[in-house]
């Protein structure tokens, strides 16, 4: 299969160089690491990861391919060179056809969502194999458009991103097969849609057994100009399903999002109710309704929804002042019913103010309070400030965050401080220090804290190349990006990354 794809890749390259009419574009991400997970031996081992994306377009059709390589200094059995993605696309006035490795979703992801976190390299402690972080669908998708109606058909196998490409051949990295259709019709700014999906899982105990069937309906529209509303309700259909059954045994997911604005004030209110709706190896990804923080410590402390039973809401308000400053308030709540007696409720309150005291100075300050009994953290407090100012030809920024986690037995304090000096679009140099007193992260139980010092330098010789150097110790843990949460491994050593576009 890979040989066939490599030949096709060669064809793309030939087409790109041979045809003046078509265009071949690409990007390459290369990362070299010398180091290891802190406290693991040997302390220094090297690895090289490379991800090449090629994209060829000629008139209405396109070919895309991705080649990934990984060569660690340890274990030949986990090194690889492979064509990991390939896609053929044809796009015309009324039809869009894609065959190969695709990214597609149904509705807001209650039934199906595939994604990629660009530039992200995934590695787990168990496998120690590095590969691109994406959950794609291998199959085909066809979209038909006619006036105000749209029909989307998808069939394919969804990648389980937790399994590296080097797992043995008898392990199926694509255990979920989905077949579905989404039909939608819009009238002005109002849209209604209906989704039907069949889901086959490898774990189904009876060979040839019927797939799970799921149905979803949604409304998406603008009301009275200032308001917009999205509502979607999805249900699992069994032999004798009663569509009005929302009992404990039923499997359903409901989401409603209302947003509105008045002058400088913007607001969004969202409600969720997910019950027995964790599909396969995680092929669906309903809206989380917990703020995805860009602040480092808060991003790490996020709540990850439990799709077997979760309900809650999120409210976010923005106010933009005439001088350009912005005030943001967010609160969210998520209730889980683990058992009759264990029913943790996550709560969070977040306030942020971004303002410009003088023209060349920008300040952002935030405060956050959360209760997270699911993680055994009854109280979490955080605060911090980011200050950016401009010098002639250079800019500086100081970032500071503090977090206090109250636990019954092991309270913890986390600190993050960074200073960056940059010449816009040319280079930047940052010194970063993280400290934690978290007992779970101390090297020795007698230690007072664990420190993560690092230097990060970035240089852009031109608009097509970026070189990034990391040297020091990086703290791992949960991270959320583009709506997807995952675990990042800690690292100590030197890392060199080269991004190229052509």
């Amino acid at each position, binding site marked *: 299969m890979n040989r066939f794809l490599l030949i096709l890749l060669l064809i793309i390259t030939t087409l790109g160089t041979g045809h003046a009419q*078509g265009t071949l574009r690409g990007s390459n991400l290369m990362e070299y690491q010398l180091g290891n997970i802190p406290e693991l031996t040997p302390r220094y081992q090297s690895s090289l990861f490379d991800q090449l994306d090629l*994209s060829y377009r*000629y*008139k*209405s*059709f*396109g070919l895309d391919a991705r080649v990934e390589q990984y060569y660690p200094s340890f274990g030949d059995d986990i090194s690889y060179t492979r064509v990991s993605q390939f896609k053929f696309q*044809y*796009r*015309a*006035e009324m039809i869009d056809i894609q065959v190969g490795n695709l*990214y*597609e*979703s149904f509705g*807001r*992801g209650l039934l199906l*969502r595939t*994604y*990629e976190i*660009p*530039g992200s390299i995934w590695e787990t402690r168990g496998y120690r194999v590095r590969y691109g972080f994406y959950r794609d669908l291998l199959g085909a998708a066809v979209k038909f458009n006619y006036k105000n109606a749209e029909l989307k058909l998808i069939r394919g196998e969804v990648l389980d991103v937790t399994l590296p490409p080097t797992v043995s051949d008898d392990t199926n990295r694509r255990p979920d097969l989905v077949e579905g259709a989404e039909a939608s019709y*819009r009238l*002005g*700014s109002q*849209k209604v849609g209906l989704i039907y999906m069949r889901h086959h899982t490898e774990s189904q105990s009876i060979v040839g057994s019927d797939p799970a069937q799921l149905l979803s309906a949604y409304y998406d529209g*603008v009301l009275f100009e200032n308001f*917009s509303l*999205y509502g979607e309700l999805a249900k699992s259909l069994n032999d004798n399903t009663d569509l009005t059954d929302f009992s404990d045994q039923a499997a359903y997911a409901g989401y409603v*999002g*209302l*947003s509105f*604005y008045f002058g*400088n004030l*913007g607001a*969004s*209110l969202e409600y969720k109710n997910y019950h027995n709706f964790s599909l396969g190896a995680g092929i669906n*990804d*309903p*809206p989380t*309704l917990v703020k*995805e923080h*860009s602040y480092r410590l808060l991003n790490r402390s996020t709540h990850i929804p439990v799709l077997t039973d979760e309900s809650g809401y999120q409210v*976010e308000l*923005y*106010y*933009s002042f005439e001088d*350009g400053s*912005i005030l943001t308030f967010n609160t969210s709540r998520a209730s889980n019913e683990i058992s009759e007696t264990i029913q943790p409720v996550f709560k969070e309150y977040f306030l942020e103010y*971004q303002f410009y005291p003088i023209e*060349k100075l*920008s300040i*952002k300050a935030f405060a956050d309070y959360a209760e997270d009994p699911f993680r055994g953290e009854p109280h979490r407090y955080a605060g911090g400030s980011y200050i950016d100012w401009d010098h002639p030809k250079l800019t500086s920024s100081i970032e500071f965050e503090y977090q206090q986690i109250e636990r019954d037995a092991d309270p913890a304090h986390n600190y993050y401080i960074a200073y960056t000096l*940059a010449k*816009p*679009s040319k280079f930047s140099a940052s010194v970063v220090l993280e400290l934690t007193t978290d007992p779970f992260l101390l090297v020795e139980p007698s230690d007072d804290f664990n420190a993560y010092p690092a230097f990060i330098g970035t240089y852009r010789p031109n*608009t097509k190349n970026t070189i990034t150097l990391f040297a020091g110790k990086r703290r791992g843990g949960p991270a959320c990006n*583009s*709506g*997807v949460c995952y675990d990042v491994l800690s690292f100590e050593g030197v890392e060199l990354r080269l991004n190229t*576009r052509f």
Partner: protein
Amino acid sequence: MCLILVTSLLTLSQHSTAQSTLRIELKEINGEYYTLDDLKGSELTVVDFWATWCKPCVKSIPKLVELSHQYEKEEVAFVGINVDSPRNLAKVRPFSKSLKIDYPVLLDTDQALYNELLVSVLPTVLILDSEGKVLFTHEGYTHGDEEYLKKKINELLEENE
């Protein structure tokens, strides 16, 4: 079989590569659906890829709004492309309104345009010609980048003359 399919589709193709980009239809935050072709300027189109969670994006937007007012809409059109995931989608419209974005903002939830234009970081500003061809790419934002962008737009307008 595959070769026959490709050959047939090639024969059917009527438009250029760049025009394929212009044909991707996306929902605008006010509910209507548009392609870049519907919104493009007669000379240039400035396309800004952003997300609500992206700090430099939020800093750059008021500057881009200011910059957009310095050109005739018909000549140099500005279009925002929001790439927030379904997780944040409910926030995009009120957020855009509170930031006073008065040019169209399209929702690229499935990252169709993002992938088509090979965008890899946020924010990314692209300047397209009237055929949809990418003339200029700028990634990231630091204070003063808007002046650089203005200079580039003016240069490209002069070249067109």
